[in-house]
């Protein structure tokens, strides 16, 4: 697609990173919109949110938090290891990150299917008989964790792509900004979960 190949593609790692950071700001405000909605409805329905949150399992939530924190560490370490020219360790650390992400998703899957089998999902009969606050709580729960899960899937794809680049030596000890950017994206996913976890699981 590059129809003027004679322009030497200038490489600007700092610029690429600046772009990624601005994108992260965008993502934060995307979730920010949902956090505004959450805080308003929580303020309007404190008791219902309190009751509804008891339906969620703190243990599953805590386990998923730990998983994401560990995966955040492994991807951060991957940058150190590529700087130290340790390609094999980089690949292992990135692989562990993806593995942990998949475990997170499996947990999420069981959590969601558990809720759905109990008849708690948007538009369900049981939910429509509950109080309005509970309808809103679960609406927000599905929307926010769902959007977060979508980001996990995108993050896994991104990291897997960078793993391929590391494997083919397109990402090396002196050219690894895309690895840094994928790591930044992954930390963003972690960062959002750090707030989702207390807001949905810990307010009982």
């Amino acid at each position, binding site marked *: 697609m590059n129809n003027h190949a004679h322009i030497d593609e200038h490489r600007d790692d700092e610029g690429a990173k600046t772009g990624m950071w601005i994108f992260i700001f965008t993502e934060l405000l995307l979730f920010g919109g949902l956090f505004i909605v959450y805080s*308003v409805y929580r303020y309007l329905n404190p008791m219902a949110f309190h009751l509804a949150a008891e339906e969620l399992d703190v243990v599953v939530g805590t386990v998923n938090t730990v998983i994401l924190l560990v995966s955040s560490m492994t991807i951060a370490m991957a940058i*150190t290891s590529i700087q130290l020219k340790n390609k094999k360790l980089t690949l292992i650390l990135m692989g562990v990150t993806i593995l942990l992400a998949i475990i997170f998703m499996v947990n999420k899957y069981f959590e969601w299917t558990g809720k759905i089998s109990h008849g708690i999902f948007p538009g369900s009969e049981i939910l429509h008989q509950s109080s309005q606050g509970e309808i809103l709580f679960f609406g927000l729960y599905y929307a926010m964790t769902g959007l977060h899960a979508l980001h996990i899937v995108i993050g896994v794809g991104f990291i897997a792509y960078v793993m391929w680049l590391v494997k083919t030596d397109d990402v090396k000890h002196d050219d690894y900004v895309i690895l840094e950017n994928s790591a930044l994206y992954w930390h963003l996913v972690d960062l959002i979960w750090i707030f989702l*976890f207390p807001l949905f699981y810990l307010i009982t």
Partner: protein
Amino acid sequence: MDNGQHTHIVKYSTFVWILIILLVLTFSSVAITQLDLGVYTVTGALLFASVKSVIVLMYFMHLKFDKKFYAIMMAGIALLLTSVIIVTFLDYLYR
């Protein structure tokens, strides 16, 4: 390097320590919300979350070692979102 990126290699052990601190904070926030603190439960949980997010930003996301611009902007975004929530609540608090 000549492309504007200054390298700062963070030691593996630093990351391990950071993870340990984050895990301790996570478990403490779970523990503290099990106590009955009334209205302060949410405040406590959010306080822990904020501390954790600052640590993730500073160390995992390298803000401490990068150009100050990113850290300043990040603080600005946090401030912006907080202000927007406060202004929105001017409606809901007094309606």
